């Protein structure tokens, strides 16, 4: 049976095209609390032989959005995060030569504050442009970000081209850098980078939409992790994590979205291929079912990920490489991962309440191909959030 929510969904594009974006502009405020919690490192993968707690992040975000005239709107995001726990430090072989994880001894406790401002201009049926500026600060880190995005719609509204660029400039001053305790840790460093993307969205039928996006990211400067070490078995010693001072990557994403006969219900499939000049190749596939446009909205998704290792990565090294590069970071190791997310929201007049849960598990078993020496630090985590927003 056709219903009012189906009518609103079906009519929204035509109504927007007829009356223009003016009526769409509503101000809103939103608060979001989220918790990210990494599972303990299992005893079997820990150098100490005991399970060890890992990282967790409590995050509070406040967002306000305000229309400015008929076709502009401004947004402001304020984020406050508290990170705590321990993180992987280095990997060493155990008595059988299997890699085991050494965790950072001291418990990390840090606070991150971030502010992001955005300005969006709407040309109605022709397209939109968005400008963003962000600043984020931690005790040992600060980052500036700038982004510019645009979308151009084709005349009949069935095709649009999107393009964007972003730039960042980060400075880091690691805790205890250059101190007698951590002489190998850098005192101060910086990195910069930028990204470019371009994509096309093609509406195939009123129910089917295809999107293709090509993107590239380049980074330069200090790309190592100042808090990680790599283990050299020959000398039974550690060296600082050391990576190339340049990284260029490219990615190709394809998305297919199909609206089902039930109004508001859509199936979405995504695939992304990633490659960089450190030798990492990665595949991501996501399948999601979304329901929107009625009092209740929800989304359920499943994601699979697999990557190959960086050329210079090893869980540990027999001797220092000729080029001096060394990293045992699990994020540069070969692995695969599975993730699932469930989000649900309910509208109550001008209010919307939302909640979500996510689980993620990285494992050598999920990778394409076989992994000879899995990194013991591969992470599993769960997160949850509560959100409330109000339109005014």
């Amino acid at each position, binding site marked *: *049976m*056709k*219903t*009012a*929510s*189906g*009518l*609103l969904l*079906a*009519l*929204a594009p*035509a*109504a927007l*095209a*007829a*009356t*223009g974006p*003016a*009526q*769409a502009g*509503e101000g809103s405020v939103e608060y979001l609390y989220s918790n990210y919690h990494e599972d303990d490192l299992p005893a079997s993968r820990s150098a100490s032989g005991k399970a060890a707690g890992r990282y967790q992040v409590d995050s509070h975000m406040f967002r306000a959005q305000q229309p400015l*005239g*008929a076709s502009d709107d401004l947004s402001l995001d304020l984020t406050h995060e508290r990170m705590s726990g321990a993180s992987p430090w280095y990997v060493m072989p155990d008595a059988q030569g299997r890699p085991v994880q050494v965790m950072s001894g001291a418990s990390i406790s840090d606070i991150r504050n971030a502010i992001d401002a955005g300005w969006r201009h709407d040309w109605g*049926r022709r397209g939109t442009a968005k400008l963003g500026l962000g600043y984020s600060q931690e005790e040992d880190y600060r980052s500036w970000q700038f982004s510019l995005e645009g979308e151009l719609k084709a*005349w*009949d509204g069935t095709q649009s081209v999107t393009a964007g660029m972003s730039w960042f400039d980060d400075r880091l001053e690691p805790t205890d850098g250059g101190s007698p305790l951590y002489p190998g840790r850098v005192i101060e460093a910086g990195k910069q980078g930028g990204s470019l993307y371009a994509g096309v969205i093609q509406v195939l039928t009123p129910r089917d939409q295809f999107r293709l996006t090509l993107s590239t990211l380049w980074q330069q400067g200090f790309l190592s992790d100042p808090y990680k070490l790599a283990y050299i078995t020959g000398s039974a010693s550690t060296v600082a994590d050391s990576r190339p001072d340049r990284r260029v990557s490219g990615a190709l994403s394809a998305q297919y979205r199909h609206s089902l006969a039930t109004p508001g219900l859509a199936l979405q499939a995504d695939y992304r291929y990633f490659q960089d000049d450190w030798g990492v190749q990665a595949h991501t596939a996501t399948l999601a079912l979304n329901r929107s*446009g*009625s*009092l209740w909205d929800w989304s359920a998704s499943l994601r699979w990920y697999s990557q190959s290792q960086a050329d210079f990565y090893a869980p540990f090294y027999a001797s220092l490489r000729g080029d001096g590069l060394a990293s045992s970071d699990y994020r540069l190791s070969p692995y695969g991962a599975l993730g699932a997310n469930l989000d649900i929201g309910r*509208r109550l*007049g001008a209010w919307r309440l939302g909640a979500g849960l996510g689980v993620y598990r990285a494992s050598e078993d999920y990778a394409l191909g076989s992994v000879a020496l899995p990194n013991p630090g591969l992470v599993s985590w769960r997160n949850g959030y509560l959100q409330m927003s109000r339109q*005014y």
Partner: protein
Amino acid sequence: MRLHQHEFHALGGPCGLSFHAEDDAAARVSAAVEAEVRRVERKYSRYRDDSVVAAINASAGQADGVLVDAETAALLDVAATLHEQSDGRFDATSGVLREVWDFRSGRLPEPAAVTALLPRIGWSLLRRRRLADGGEQLWLPRPGMALDFGGFGKEYAADRAAAVLRAEGIRHGLVELGGDISVVGPHPDGSPWRIGIRHPRDPARAIAAIDVARGGLATSGDYERCLIVDGRRYGHILDARTGWPVADGPASLSVTAPSCLLAGAVCTLGLLQGARALDWLADCPQPWLAVDAGLGLHGALARAEVA
């Protein structure tokens, strides 16, 4: 800055706007909004022989059809969606039923006369071809077919008028065109506009009040034009598939939505559901208020009842 009001007559009924502005801007703003309402009326009036609607209807049965601009094409998309979503109960070509339905006469039409008109009704008979400028070429294949923008034209005009208010720099104001309302923004102190909803059986009284800060509010009811024959009420909401009024629907329905066009669409299609209206509205994410024949109130806005 203070509250200014301007009233005029257009689209077959009383129109008004209320907005907060500096005194020296008020006359210019009022004139600009009224001019926009009159532009939409002139363009889509079925009573003017120089309107777009007249040109479309004059082309019925012609091999070349008629060319219409992008604004009209966008409204035809709205009409197409309403037809599809109502399973044909709403049909922008059903205006020909006015040839037999005269709600001032006190008499029902002959059933045979209604049936005789049905072949001239049929949105799905229309042929449309998009043109590169956003406009389109449109064919009404049968002579005697006619299109009109009743059911969404006035709501569209309200949204257009509100867009002009906004373009004039007004942040606090609303436009009302014969009961269809488009709100630009709340009063300067942030309080919403309180809008009385007419009692369906007593035009002098309000049955409820609805607060609107932004977006559209549309109300439609069986009281606007109706025939009462042998104690039975025949409302002006005609089912295009049969040519007869929908029976056993709500006496009145009010909906708020991001735009008046959307609110009006829910109202129109909701009333067309007849006895199934409340089921059809059950999953509506936008707040609504239905007054049933027994004057009971339903929907999220029912709490706003006036004592």
